[in-house]
């Protein structure tokens, strides 16, 4: 097997968390290498450059790796899950294709056991992470508006995205209902920011931003980390983490761009592969010393998978709205976020208000929801849908359950022959009640806004790609995989910084918190360099 020169720190995965931890550790002047299985993305390759921009959301920029099927992707057996897995494999990872919605977790999200008697408290709290949230906001570049009474104080460096016709319509309805709303925080630049151009409203941001206005880590953290000396090697797919006779991580075996098997030795290994990729890698790293997978003495590697069920409720108004001419992000509501004892479920959700879609996507949505017929009435009905759509997403907190898990598929493998992940996942009764509550509130809002032809899409098509909880953090080695600063209980030079270390999921998009946690773990490592393995 071909070998490489030893590095101080080996990071696996270059997405949201891998980029943040690489940048933060760069100041130590350690030799840092990141292995990424995908490619660098080129803005000229993003769909909005071409007339087929909508169709490509269902092909090479599809959020499901199973359908996208790039040679840099690995398959995921998600047959036994109503919610499907979404991810992206390339420099920047999921930030290349996320919507750039940027809520933080709330303080109560870290104290769900103490406050609400459910699940477990985190070993860190909001206030320990606050300065890392702020640092990350500066690094990613956040647009928003201070003063929101629904969330703790924060100070986005850029003004919010315009309300537009659609946001104004929502706001009028919310004010009549007396319910909270606020312009969403996003990582879409509304002014020039650190070399990024301002948003020019080229449409839904998910399939990459040709303008470069959306913050993905390939254009935020990585240029700075590389300039500071970090090496990023693409097309390197890691098969397993190796360990030495002392049970310490010794490096990783990976396949390079030519399919050649290589060994990369390292003093410290950091996993940043997301809540599915990380448990897959740990389970694929089983050995005589770690027969159940690496760092898995608790038996919790892969368990407690949380996916954020995310119903979307839509309706149509008579007046023309923004359609697809602008970011999908618009406003949010925290009205139903915190636990309310009068409801029949614990915890809560964010309402996320979206704009419309492009012409082809509207036709697909209309047909699949039964609102758009085929035949001679198609054109008349279609004109009443296109650019008239309102839609509200219900971002439900998904509490941890051990039977929701990632294991290794006994048959399915990626193109290098590495066993693929298998997902077993069900939606809990608490979450189902939460979903129905949110759907009912969304229908009230849309009705108040004058919308008709309401349609609720509960889960199957709304997989948000939030992959959380499968290597949870905690102080008890029997009940967690990593400690309160991200180090594996079982392997003292192995760290995890991605969404898998989450204890609970909150009811928000996770990237802001994933990165704040990665910066927090990096800070803890820097403070403990002399005693890191004690």
């Amino acid at each position, binding site marked *: 097997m071909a070998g490489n020169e030893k590095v101080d720190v080996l990071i696996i995965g270059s997405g949201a968390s891998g980029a943040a931890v690489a940048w933060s550790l760069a100041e130590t002047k350690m030799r840092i290498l990141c292995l990424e299985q995908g490619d660098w993305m080129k803005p000229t390759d993003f769909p909005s450059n071409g007339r087929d921009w*909508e169709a490509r959301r*269902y092909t090479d920029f599809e959020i499901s790796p199973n359908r996208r*099927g790039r040679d840099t992707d690995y398959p995921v057996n998600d047959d036994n899950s109503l919610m499907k897995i979404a991810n992206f494999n390339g420099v920047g990872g999921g930030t290349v294709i996320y919507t750039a919605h940027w809520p933080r977790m709330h303080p109560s999200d870290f104290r769900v056991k103490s406050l609400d008697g459910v699940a477990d408290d985190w070993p860190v709290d909001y206030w320990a992470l606050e300065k890392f949230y702020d640092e990350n906001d500066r690094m990613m570049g956040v647009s928003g508006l201070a003063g929101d*009474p*629904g969330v703790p104080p924060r100070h986005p460096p850029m003004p919010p995205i315009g309300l537009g016709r659609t946001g104004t319509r929502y706001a009028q309805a919310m004010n009549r209902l007396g319910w*909270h709303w606020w312009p969403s925080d996003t990582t879409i630049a509304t002014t020039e920011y650190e070399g990024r151009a301002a948003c020019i*409203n080229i449409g839904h941001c998910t399939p990459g931003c040709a303008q470069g206005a959306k913050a993905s880590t390939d254009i935020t953290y990585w240029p700075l980390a590389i300039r500071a000396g970090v090496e990023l090697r693409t097309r390197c797919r890691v098969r397993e983490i190796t360990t030495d006779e002392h049970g310490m991580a010794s490096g990783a075996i990976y396949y390079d761009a030519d399919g050649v098997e290589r060994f990369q030795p390292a003093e410290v290994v950091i996993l940043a592969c997301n809540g599915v990729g990380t448990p897959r890698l740990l389970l694929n790293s089983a050995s005589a010393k770690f027969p159940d997978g690496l760092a898995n003495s608790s038996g919790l590697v892969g368990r407690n998978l949380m996916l954020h069920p995310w119903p979307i409720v839509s309706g149509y108004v008579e007046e023309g709205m923004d359609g697809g001419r602008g970011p999908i992000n618009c406003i949010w509501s925290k009205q139903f*976020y915190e636990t309310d004892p009068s409801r029949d479920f614990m915890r809560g959700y964010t309402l996320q208000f979206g704009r419309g879609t492009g012409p*082809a996507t509207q036709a697909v949505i209309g047909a699949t929801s039964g609102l758009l017929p085929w035949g001679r009435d198609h*054109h008349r009905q279609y004109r009443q849908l296109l650019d008239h759509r309102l839609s509200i997403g219900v971002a439900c907190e998904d509490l941890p359950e051990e039977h929701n898990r990632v294991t290794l598929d006994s048959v399915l493998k990626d193109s290098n022959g590495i066993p693929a992940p298998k997902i077993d996942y069900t939606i809990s009764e608490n979450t189902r009640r939460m979903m129905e509550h949110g759907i009912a509130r969304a229908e009230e809002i849309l009705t108040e806004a004058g919308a008709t032809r309401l349609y609720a899409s509960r889960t199957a098509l709304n997989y948000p790609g939030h992959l959380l909880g499968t290597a949870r953090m905690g102080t008890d080695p029997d009940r967690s995989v990593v400690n309160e600063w991200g180090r594996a209980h079982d392997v003292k030079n192995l760290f995890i910084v991605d969404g898998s270390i989450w204890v609970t999921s909150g009811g928000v998009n996770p990237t802001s918190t994933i990165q704040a946690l990665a910066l927090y773990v990096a800070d803890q490592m820097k403070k403990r360099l002399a005693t890191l393995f004690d």
Partner: protein
Amino acid sequence: MVTDLDARLTAAEILALGRIAATMVPEDAVSGMPGADDPAILDDIARSLGRDLPLIREALAAVAAKSGGAFAALDRDGREALINDWYAGGGAPAVALGRVIVGAYYRDDRVLLALGHEARAPFPKGYVLEQGDWSLLDVVRGRQPFWRDDRVVPAGES
């Protein structure tokens, strides 16, 4: 996963696809909308099948079976009723067929212009998004913070 991207429909399959496409999205001369069987659009559909080709073949076979092999012989009402009925329960093949037809149809210049849209890619020109009415936020600004502060001990507890 990706299948044989180099495969293509046969001429007979394209003929059948054209009949179905014309039924699903027919020409509307009054509004200037071509049908989805317009030669340029049908050619775009046929070239865009890619990874959906197996599903499209399943869809063509399902429609043929449902019509007893006589889809073309049905009158317009019969064809539309059959397609709408099949689409509602047709699963992945139906969704794929609808998606590839409208994916090509709603990027055709004539269609977009008839809908009042510009016939161009979003980038680099972009679009204008109105600021909207920010005065609506005034009432929200007046609310007291209502997020739960975990540092605050509830009254009666210490």
